[in-house]
Structures are given as C-alpha cells and as structure tokens.
C-alpha cells in the first residue's frame, strides 16, 4: 500500500517539477542584477523625493540611464550617490547642494491671537477645506501637524509652546513629503547653507500690510525695506510679500535688522558684533 502512495506522489511531483521548470524558462523576466545592488546602497526610505516611485524605481532609473544626469537621492546625499556611481561605473550627479525643509510661518500663539475656536477634526487639510482658520491670518500654519504625520524621518515636530512645526536639521532629508502634506504651502525646500546658515522670510501672508499685521505681529507686511537693502537683488516683493531667493542670497544679513516686524529669520549665525538701534527689538524675537 505504501508503495502506491510513494509512486503516485513521486509522479505528481516529477510532473509538477517539469512544468514549473518549463514555465520559469518560458516566462522568465530578466532583471539587471545591478538594480538590486544599487537598491541596497540606497537608504530604503521609499519617500519618493527623487521623483521616482520608491527606491527600487530610482535604482532602475540609475541603471537604465546613460549619464545619471539629474538623478540624485536627497536622502542619502553625495555619499550614497558616490556608492551608486562605484557600483555602476558611471559619473554620479553629486553636485547637488544639501537642502532642507524650512517652515515659513512664525505666527506663534503669542503673536497671532485666536479669533475663533475650531473643534473639528485635528487635521490641517480638513480645516483648510472648511475655512480660514482660528486666527485672522488665512495663510498661516494651522498647527495640527499634517507635516509631522507625513515625515518619515522624525525630522519635524510641533513645538507645543509656539504651536508651530520645527525642523530638525540633522534628520531632515529634504524629501519634500511635508511640503506636499501642507495645505497652506508654508514649507519650502531651501538650501541648507554653509554650517546650516540660512536667511528666509518666515511668512507667507499675501494680505495687505495692515490686514496681515492685524492678524499677526510677526507677519511680513510687504514694506520692501529688505528689498532695498539687498545688494544682490535676491529679495523680490510680490503680492505684499518679500521672498528671498536662496540662489542669489549671499547671507550678508543686512536685510534682517531692517525688517520692522522681524519676519526675516536667520539661523545658526554667530551673534552680531555691533547691534544697531533698530535691530535690538528684532534680535529678541529671533
């Protein structure tokens, strides 16, 4: 009896083996083994910051591209790209500067008083679909943390004191997930700058100066003083709002002291040597 079972199962097994072998030959899909190698070298965050669907997509793009122009993993940075170039034997595009997410709102609880109460779902997109927000500023941060939820690297947190998100320079990979998550387009990817030194306008309010100021003490009122001060033409004034172009900015710091509302932020600079009279107020805020 046992013999019958062994023989019949053996025959079934043999037939299946032949069938599977034939199928695997017939339907074989060739994958470049380098794709796997490149993927191992990548951070594996699948954040999509490179513009491809996940790390596997980026690895395939690297292998298939001839020159690797425009292919850059912002998460891994130049180190990762050099590893990839070693694997593939191609010149990697390592020229890209380190970038960083910057939160352009300084409407702290103190500076931006609440004029109504929102008790709907604690979600920025929902609040934004419904109305302008709890404060008089219809451009500023809601503070419900859609960006925090979106971040895959724990690089952005809401500061409970100010109610605003803060970016951790170390963790931020400039993948841009928070930029997409923010319904107000407050977060911008900007140049990290030498020694993390950056200057930017921390406001996106496009209302007229009076309205903006009434809603928030730290708002940019579009007075244009900074634009006049800038020797490099890096500051443009549009829709009652100043914007510093980081590609032109030389970090001379002349714009920040002239801002009457302290909307221009400078980070990681050494303290100023000579403090001018109008600058005293601003440095307190910064």
């Amino acid at each position, binding site marked *: 009896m046992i013999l019958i079972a062994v023989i019949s199962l053996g025959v079934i097994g043999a037939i299946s083996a032949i069938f599977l072998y034939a199928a695997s030959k017939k339907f074989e899909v060739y994958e470049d083994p380098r794709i796997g190698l490149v993927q191992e070298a990548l951070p594996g965050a699948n954040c999509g910051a490179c513009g491809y669907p996940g790390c596997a997509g980026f690895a395939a793009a690297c292998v298939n591209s001839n020159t690797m122009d425009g292919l850059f993993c912002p998460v891994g940075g130049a180190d990762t790209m050099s590893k990839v170039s070693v694997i593939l034997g191609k010149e990697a595009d390592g020229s890209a500067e380190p970038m960083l997410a910057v939160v352009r709102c300084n409407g702290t609880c103190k500076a931006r008083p609440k004029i109504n109460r929102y008790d*709907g779902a604690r979600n920025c997109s929902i609040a934004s679909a419904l*109305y302008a927000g709890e404060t008089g500023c219809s451009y500023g941060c809601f503070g419900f943390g859609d960006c925090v939820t979106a971040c895959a690297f724990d690089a952005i947190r809401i500061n409970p004191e100010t109610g605003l998100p803060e970016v951790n320079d170390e963790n931020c990979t400039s993948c841009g997930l928070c930029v997409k998550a923010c319904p107000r387009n407050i977060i911008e990817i900007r140049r990290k700058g030498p020694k993390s030194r950056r200057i930017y306008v921390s406001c996106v309010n496009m209302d007229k100066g009076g309205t903006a100021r009434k809603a928030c003490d730290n708002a940019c009122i579009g007075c244009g003083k900074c634009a006049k001060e800038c020797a490099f033409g890096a500051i443009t004034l549009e829709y009652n709002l100043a914007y510093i172009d980081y590609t032109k900015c030389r970090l001379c710091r002349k714009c920040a002291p002239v801002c009457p509302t302290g909307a221009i932020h400078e980070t990681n600079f050494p303290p100023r040597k000579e403090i001018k009279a109008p600058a005293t107020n601003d440095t307190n805020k910064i």
Partner: protein
Amino acid sequence: MLKTFHIGGIHPPENKLSAGQKITQLNLPKQVIIPLAQHIGAPASVTVRKGDEVKVGTLLAKANGYVSANIHSSVSGKINKVDSAFDTSGYSHTAIYIDVEGDVWEDYIDRSDTLIKDKLMTPQQIIDKIADAGIVGLGGAAFPTHVKLYPPPECWATVLIINAAECEPYLTSDHALMMEKGEEIMSGINLLMSATRVGEALIGIENNKQDAIRHMQQLAKEYRGIKVVPLKTKYPQGGEKQLIEALIHRQVKSGELPISVGAVVQNVGTAFAVYEAVMKRKPLIERVVTVTGKDVARPSNFLVRIGTPISQLIEAAGGLPANTGKIVSGGPMMGRGLTGTEIPVVKGTSGVLLLPEKDAKRKPARDCIRCAKCIDVCPMGINPTALMTATEFSNWEAAEQNHITDCIECGSCAYICPANRPLTDYLRMGKRKVMGIIKSRKA
C-alpha cells in the same frame, strides 16, 4: 402616505422659531460690501471704479465666462474702494465697498406692487433677462440660474421641480416668502416653465409648513401644470437628488446631472427672483434672510440688501445673546461657522443662526463602534465610515471606488454618529482631494 426619498435621511429637531414672522425690510446700512464671487464659477469682473456714483441696480461687475453671474449695486451712493474682504469661509476675496447715500433706484426698475402674470416672451428672452439680472440659486449653493436653464445637448427637460422643502432646521425664509409672495412665485414658476419648455411644475413642500401648502395649493389652481406636493418632513429633503426622487421617483445616476432624468430643479426663492427680474426688471439686490437662534430676542425674517454686514441683522433681531458659541451662516446642518460679524450678506445667505455655547461645542470623537448608523442615514447610499477611514489614510483609490464624489456634505452621518466622529469633515476633504485627482487625470 406622504412622498419622500427612500435612502437614508434623518429628522433633527425642527426649531423653526421664526416661522409665522412677517418679512420685514431691514434698514439700509451705512456701508455695503459686495463680493465679486457670490456664486459658483468665475468671479465677476469689475466695471466700476473708486469714486463712481451708483444707483440701486447699477451694474457693478459683469459675468466673467459661461458659469458666472452679473452683480448689481444694492444701494445708491459712492464707491469707496475695491478691496479684499473676508467671506463666509474667512478667506479674503475682492469686494466692492459702497458708502450709502439716500436710496435712489435706476429708472429701468419697475418698483410698483402690481402683479404681472402674462407677458408673451420667448424662452431665450426670459433666459437673457435672468442672466442680465444676475440671478443665482438662492437655496445656498448659488449656482447661476441661467446656466441651469440651458439643457446640455441631447437632453430634454420634462419637468420643473421647485424646491420649497426648506429641510434645514431653524430656517424659515422660503416659508415666509411663500406666505407673502405666493402669487409672484407662481408667476415666476410660469416663466421658468416657459424658459425650459416644460408643461409640468411640481412644488415640493415639507408638511411641517401646512399653511404654506394650503396657500400655494389655492394659488396653483389658477395655473395649468403647476402642482403642489406635500412631502414628509425629513432631512435632506431639499437636496436636489433627494427631491427629484421624492417627486418623480427617479434616481439620478452617480456623477450625472438632474437633467439626465429630465428634471430642472430651482429653489422657490429663485422663482421669486426670476419673477422680479423678468417682469419688473429688478436685479438680484436683496433677499430674505432668517435670523434665528434659541436665545435670540426676536427671531425674524428680514428682507436684506446684498452686502449688508451680518452684525446689523443680528442687532435688528435683538442683539447677540451673551451665551453665543457660534455664528452660523446658513442652517445648522450645512451652514458655515463665521469668523466674525462684519461679513456681508451675499446672494447665497439663507440664514444667520446664533447657536448657544452648549449646542455649538462638539463632543470629543471616540472610536468607531461599527454600528453602521451613518450608512443607514446616508441619503446618497455611500459608506461614510469606510470613506472616512480611506481619507484618514490617504487611500484615494478606495475613496474614489466607493463613490466619495457622490457625497453631498449634508452632515447626516456626523449628526447621527454615537461616537461623535467628524465624518462629514473627512468626507468633504476627501471629496475635494479625489475631485482634484480626477481633474488632473483628465488634463
């Protein structure tokens, strides 16, 4: 058995506090703020400049594109400025500020009270006059009326449906209008019937307005083809698709327009505005607004010029009660909480509701207990709880497959939820997102 729609629905406390109140003309304000985007579609483009003298009925802004509407001055005076103003959502949009001086009307407007019934006009003439007067749907959505009257190619209207359900709790503006301006409304319906070339008009009125039903039935006897249909009191009876189902027993397919089942739906207030526009050449410069609330001294129905700040309406109704927690523009179910009282009345403002603190506050949301009450009450037959989960986790494919775009944002699901989950909030957001995705896919 009274007619009604068959899927879902709720019956919140009616609270029609201002029912039976006569329509009173509100005093002219010192300044009006007339926004350029009072309707669905493109904002109108300004035709006046700062310092211009205007009369009541002067064209201020011209319709900009196909889906848009003209805007006329509701007062006489001088243009103070063209600047941004906050609208009901709290966002600022361009508006015209006019300082009021006297009350001088344009000569072309017939201000007499005489009722005009018959005036032979072609459908095109009627529609042109409606478009000139800047009439929009007065039920709340403010969709330009003339656009609705042109059927898309290969579609025929067979029936005109007049929405007088007024299913939102608290609101009574349509009720008051029917009681006082019934004959004008009938004449307006007649005009809409000839504009859409239909022989039948059905007026749907919920049976909590017995006096209005009797009054309108009496008046309808004189007109051929107009019929008043009492409806069961059930929210959202006044939803376009719900009303069509209740009255002609046909369901509008997902993603289709009411015209696909041969129906054109207009609000009863719109019918009155159409009468005034066509017969009296009076543009849409004023409307009936209910000001109400449990602690309001005098809940009233006011005839208000467009652009009057809401603060003035509240004052006329006896002032802001001390315990007010929320000021809502519209009804309690679909209205919007206002961020201030200096927001102007626009064409779509049907009511101002002052909710006391204890009613206004939401209870904290708890976990879903899978009771499926939201599915039971959803008038569109979709699954709010599953859609909320899909939206919460940005699963847009699932949201689209489960017809999130069918949501009419009526708020029934959030109203019934025993766990106080903000279902409508999530669905509204998800619907916008999915619509954006569909749009970008087409482009």
